[in-house]
């Protein structure tokens, strides 16, 4: 199944494999799944997870254990923009629920869902270490802090 992985992804995995002892290829599961996900519109199909496992000589289940453990791996298709709203303690105290509710209403989706046009996916995530400016959310790789419903609206307007 490894033919599902592109040449570039394989090269990147190979580069990471060099960082671990030869008999511990399992260590490369995390980065390998990440590259594979990034090269596939940010999500991992079952077949892709299997492909990564096979590329690293691991049983399929070993890759699924990792892929299901971390919320950063998406096991179903996601929107172009992932809205990851922090739901941990500091943000919670600063009413992140209000932000989530606002997004739910505005986008007409539930947490974990993707808008019909495939633009946004809404997720609630664990602490992203920006407590000082709670509440916050991460959109793809960028942080947006000190959120209010109004600010959220203006941020979303800037996204294509």
């Amino acid at each position: 199944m490894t033919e599902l992985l592109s040449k570039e992804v394989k090269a990147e995995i190979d580069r990471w494999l060099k960082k671990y002892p030869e008999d511990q290829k399992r260590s490369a599961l995390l980065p390998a799944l990440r590259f594979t996900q990034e090269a596939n519109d940010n999500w991992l199909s079952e077949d892709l997870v299997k492909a990564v496992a096979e590329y690293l000589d691991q049983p399929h289940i070993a890759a699924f254990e990792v892929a299901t453990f971390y919320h950063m791996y998406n096991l179903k298709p996601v929107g172009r923009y992932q809205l990851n709203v922090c739901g941990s303690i500091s943000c919670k105290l600063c009413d992140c629920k209000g932000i989530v509710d606002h997004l739910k209403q505005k986008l007409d989706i539930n947490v974990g869902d993707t808008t019909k046009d495939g633009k946004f996916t809404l997720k609630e995530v664990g602490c992203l270490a920006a407590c000082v400016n709670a509440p916050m959310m991460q959109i793809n790789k960028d942080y947006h802090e000190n959120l209010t419903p109004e600010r959220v609206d203006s941020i979303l307007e800037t996204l294509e």
Partner: protein
Amino acid sequence: MITVEIDGKKLEVQEGTSIIEAAENAGIWIPRFCYHKKLSVAANCRMCLVEVEKAPKPMAACATPVNEGMRIFTTSEKALAAQKIVMEFLLINHPLDCPICDQGGECELQDIAMGYGRGISKYSQGKRSVEDEDLGPLIATDMTRCIHCTRCVRFGSEVAGVREMGMTGRGEHGRIGTYIKHTMSHEMSGNIIDLCPVGALTSKPNRFEGRSWEFDQMASVASHDCVGSNTFIHSLRHEAMRVVPRDNENINEVWLSDRDRFSYEGVKSHHRLHEPRIKKNGEWQVVSWHEAMAFAAEGLRTASEKWGADQVGALASPNSTLEEFYLLSRLMRGVGSNHIDHRLRESDFSDQTLRGAFPGIAGSLNDINQQNAILVLGSDLRREVPIVAHRVRQANKNGAPVMAVNMIDHDLNVDLAENIVASPDDFVQQLSGIADALNGKGEPTSEQKAIADTLKAAEKANIIIGHVALHHPNAVAIRALANAIADLSGATVSHLTDGANSAGAWVAGAIPHRAAGGAAIETAGLNYLEMIDNPLHAYIVMGISPDFDTAHPVKARAALNKADFVVSISSFTSDILSESDAIYETADVILPMVPSAETSGTFVNATGNWQQFQGALKPQGEARPGWKILRVLANFLKLKDFEYTSSDEVLDAVKAAVEANDLMSRVEKSLVLTSLPATTSGIAKVTQVPLYRADQLVRHAPALQHQLDESHRSARLNTRTAKLLKLASGDRAVIQDADESYVLPVMIDDKVSDNAVALSAAMVGTKTMSDFFGPITVTKG
């Protein structure tokens, strides 16, 4: 050795031992769920928390090694408080469905909850529920009951060598499963039923059939392979309920293969024979034992008077007991014939007079784990003798290189240091190459040289000759070359034999060239192949169906059909999947025999271990133990000295014969090959007997039959051979064999060697095959 104190007891223990092991050795029980002596330490259930002096927190007894002077308290207030709290956590999400749970009564969680659980839960929220897995026909799941001890996961990666299960998700969403639905296909998968401390994994065939405390338990010995795993048969009101392993470190450790575990279903098959039958004027009639015996004796006597005693032959299943073999051997010799054999899947016998006491495994089974190098010749180990495969894997994990020369690139579940996949024709040449490499002559290939060097360098090396090689038409040359390689490299040779009691057949004289105890015979009788090549006038067949239990189904059936008189001693009327009834078709009298679970007897395993067992179940209907049938038949034939009143007396007679002939001191002599067998060109068969088709009993066990897959019903060949024959996956291949032709779907399998077509014997689609390895022509149908 260091000194520790557990619960006030001073103990001398080996350094590095964990607290739980040290306590267990001293007879102190610490509660646990995830710890298992045969698996790695996970320390994730926390049930074994104990108090250690000067340690600020309770310590997990399974993961804490003992130290000099350590004082451990397993039942102190602090330890008990910790254990109770862990128990409370475990019970938060565990359903209270013990009344409908199959594990109830033998559940570790239930037992420990009785001791450590609270009567009332502080927890009022809902419990989580988890979707069930479908793991196939053998293992039932109720994953809501799972407490995440991960024993099943560790069994898969550490013992089975195939990691099928894992823990996906995290925290409260964590669950044990395969993630992608699939059937557990490992040959030892049933062991996770025993390992599971709760009712999450239970036996599917035994589901809701009874409560463990109602079962009667009888020690027994598994009747399928030459290891003879120790078992307990559990029964309820004389009906077999299940089979579980009986610990024996020297044989099966704590494990049991699925074939040994689930074949008991065959005992309950409605294809069992319950009464004696005779064929009179072409019509089958149910008759009394007396009439059937008189009829059988009369038929045999008539045949031997009319055609001569050497026109009577006997073919016995290699799963017969030692006592049955002995009585059959004496009966045949009493009649005046030496034509008796149990090697029904072999076809090369020319070295039989050189063999030792019996073909078997060198040393003990534990020795396999201790080898420094292992060479596997012609064997699909995992699907022949699973326990030996397990031990080879352990040796490999201990660092021994495992090498293989095979006709199909079998998945042996080890990292093969060297792997030669040769066509059936080239197989012998490859062995010759290895011998040449050791002799320093010829031009061995690099692989042959590497195998030779590894064997020579190893202090202890073993060459394991498997079933595929045993059934090969050049089996004698293979044995001779293996012996030569062993002599030159200092290795030992192990033979894996068919059935549960091939060794017993040699000991008891169920071979044409030696009587009981290996006593010499003036002129050897006909072996199995000679008996069917030149059909005799009368046969006694025991425990076999000619279609599925011989290597030459067409010839065997024809020989029996042609005979004037055939006595079939059998447990089953026919084979469950068979379209026609080979036994009814070929026999003149059928004497119903009980399977080994219903009789006392002895199996001699491949290491020469005589394992006696008692009948665990009541004989069904009028069926009788094989030894009684043969004893009475001998009486009807008016043969002398057949006055045995118990199987023990028969066993004593065998023991006396063994001692009288000093059988056990007999050593195997090597045959010196003067020339290699001629090679032929063209397409040849490579035939294997599927694990769950090996004998009558397992063929009648429905759950195991569901484990067969398409590969067993197909003709498998590699891409090159397929191209050569212009065949593609999904085509129908018309296979023209020496006698008849048959049609099978094509499956492309690049594990098969060139110019070979891999087939499965003992299947309906191949019951018209001429032999296991002969040449065939294949065309597209």
